[in-house]
């Protein structure tokens, strides 16, 4: 019997008018409350040469002092150092991870400089993918380590991008949201800065480097994002020291010729960077990472592993099937291993048995030997005993003979004295 489980009434999505206040306008608040209790993750990757001001900028951006020692210049290669911090502002808990490229740009041969960075980013995607593919997974609990924003520090040469920068950015642009910034911008004069910025942007465009585009589709942020994009790359100055300006203390760098104020928009673009990175687009950066970069990685990885989406008329579950095949393979391997182990075990047992048998035989032989020796000894002892008995017998005979002689001698002696006595007595009479 054909059953129709579900029939959709032929009304497509139609707008319904409400005759009163229902109350689901609180949904965004419910969502935000949920997210607040869970906390947020944000991961920033800072790529730039040693000494270009990465750590200082982070300190300035987040108004705090992250513990770190300045790196040395003689690292053999580029390595990434990740540090996590927990920040809290009003009721928002942020788990911030800052990843530093230690040793970037210090080597003589910089061919492979970009590789550790790409590997790190891929490793974070891989970790997430692994979690997502698990059978029993806990994604809501997962600490997201994927890089949400990559701040690329450009050295303030005033001319153009270095080839290392171009190569690295090209390798990273499909994997992460790149925000290029000009570091230590207080060393560039204002007119030079403008030329420098345009040169950089045109070089990026001509080399096909895709940097992060501030979203302009949402009306509330479209305007501010559009105006800010014009100033890319942001020329920033970082400072954690405060200088007295007027009657206030402000973050600044003091030179003999003047004071560069970090938060003064005429002096540098720090405020713009903070606006864009944190106050306006943090969520969008996270979303782009998840829906664009991660999905790209996932697609490539799965296709690499041999999965493919089948076309609609064949079986629709190829991922599941390959899962199953893998599981079979895995179980088969397990079985094989088990067999191997069993074989080995049997063999070992046999060996041990043989050994034990050998040992038993030895023992038997030893026992026999001992027995024989014992017998021999016994015989010897018996012989000796016989001898001794013979001797004792002889001795006794001799003793008896001597005693006899003695008694005979005594008797004879006694008789002689009697004879003598009788003679004496006879003479007296």
């Amino acid at each position, binding site marked *: 019997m054909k059953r129709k489980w579900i029939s959709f009434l032929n009304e497509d999505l139609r707008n319904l008018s409400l005759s009163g206040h229902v109350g689901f306008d609180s949904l965004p608040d419910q969502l935000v409350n949920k997210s607040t*209790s869970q906390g947020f993750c944000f991961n920033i990757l800072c790529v730039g040469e040693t000494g270009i001001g990465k750590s200082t900028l982070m300190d300035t951006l987040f108004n705090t002092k992250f513990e770190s020692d300045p790196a040395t210049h003689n690292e053999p290669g580029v390595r990434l150092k990740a540090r996590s911090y927990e920040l809290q502002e009003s009721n928002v808990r942020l788990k911030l991870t800052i990843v530093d490229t230690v040793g970037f740009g210090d080597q003589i041969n910089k061919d492979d400089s970009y590789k550790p960075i790409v590997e790190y980013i891929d490793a974070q995607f891989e970790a997430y993918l692994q979690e997502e593919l698990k059978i029993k997974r*806990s994604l809501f609990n997962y600490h997201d380590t994927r890089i949400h924003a990559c701040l690329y520090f450009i050295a303030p040469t005033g001319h153009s991008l270095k080839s290392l920068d171009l190569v690295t950015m090209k390798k990273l642009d499909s994997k992460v949201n790149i925000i290029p910034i000009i570091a230590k911008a207080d060393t560039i004069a204002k007119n030079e800065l403008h030329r420098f910025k345009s040169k950089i942007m045109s070089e990026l465009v001509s080399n096909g480097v895709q940097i992060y585009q501030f979203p302009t589709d949402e009306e509330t942020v479209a305007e501010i994002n559009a105006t800010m994009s014009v100033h890319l790359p942001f020329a920033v100055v970082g400072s954690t020291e405060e200088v007295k300006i007027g009657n206030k203390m402000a973050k600044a760098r003091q030179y003999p010729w003047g004071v560069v104020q970090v938060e003064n928009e005429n002096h540098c673009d720090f405020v713009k960077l903070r606006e864009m990175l944190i106050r306006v687009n943090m969520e969008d950066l996270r979303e782009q990472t998840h829906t664009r970069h991660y999905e790209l990685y996932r697609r490539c990885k799965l296709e690499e592993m041999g999965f493919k989406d089948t076309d609609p008329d064949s079986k629709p579950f190829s991922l599941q099937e390959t899962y199953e095949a893998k599981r*079979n393979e895995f179980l088969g391997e397990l079985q094989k291993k088990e067999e191997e182990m069993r074989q080995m075990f049997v063999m070992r047992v046999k060996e041990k048995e043989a050994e034990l048998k050998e040992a038993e035989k030895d023992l038997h032989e030893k026992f026999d030997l001992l027995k024989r020796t014992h017998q021999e000894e016994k015989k010897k002892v018996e012989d000796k005993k016989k001898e001794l008995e013979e001797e004792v017998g002889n001795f006794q005979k001799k003793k008896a003979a001597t005693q006899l002689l003695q008694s005979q001698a005594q008797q004879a002696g006694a008789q002689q004295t009697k004879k003598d006595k009788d003679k004496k007595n006879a003479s007296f009479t």
Partner: protein
Amino acid sequence: MAGTSKRSTSPHASRSSSPKASPCEMFGYVGIEAVLDQLKIKAMKTGFEFNIMVVGRSGLGKSTMVNTLFKSKVWKSSPVNKLGPLPQTLQLQSVTHTIEEKGVKLKLTVTDTPGFGDQINNDKCWDPILNYINDQYERYLQEEVLITRQHHIPDTRVHICVYFVPPTGHCLRPLDIEFLKRLCRVVNVVPVIARADSLTLEERESFRWQIQEDLKNNGIYVYPQKCFDEDSNDKTLNDKIREKIPFAVVGADREHLVNGKCVLGRKTKWGIIEVENMAHCEFPLLRDLLIRSHMQDLKDITHNVHYENYRVHRLNESHLLTKGAGWVTLSPPTRRNTGGSSRGQRWNRDESENAC
């Protein structure tokens, strides 16, 4: 569920397994809290989805209740022709609307189950419903495992199933118990006492108490489930709700004049029952729970718990099939009646895993 495993399955555990993070103090305002606004803007732009299913015998006022909840005519025409014969089989019917309030767009899908419990032999009448719910999970899963996925996977999974208990005043019937037992493992269930205007307040209280006892004795965990309480605040709030479950509700979509005000209510010869009056019935509690306070939570639990459970079973169930020579092709989960009961068994077997 042991204390340790509770935390790992709670969808709200915010203690993530992460590298050690040192707390840092900020010396000034940074602006991190702006991310909340960004979230809100993003959410309002993409809109929300909510899927509700109402189950109960015909004549209990399910459609009216839905209309009252969403203050609109959700059903253009009655899903079941009230004058005609009752449907011979259980047929689920869904209707989807987009409603908007103060800039918040909500895509609402209501699934009705006319014919439920109406047959003479109601054995396994829960199967079509279970199959429907699992179908939606299946659909989502298939979208999720694609190589090229959509940005936003359309969510048709049932977030809440409102079960209408007829106001007998005694206790839960065997059909109710069987149904609730099976469904509470698969979806969030909220039982309500329908047509509560036929019970006095005392009868209501004793009926409610009896139902709570029945639920407890049969191991039925209705929403809000105790094991998903995140912290003590949640617990106190949810405890208050749990005390009152099942809500005694009355639905009405007509307005009447009471004390000069226009209110939704049912007019009878002995008075007007005001739907939104807490003294008359507990409809406001239901509405607040479903819409105003726990809507997001319902979606989260569906996504993080029920859907994940389904996914685990689905990905594991292949190893229960016999491995013949060569490759076993997976077909979508079977739809036979017997399949349904074995599925029911399977869910029950995993009581230790996901029972609270």
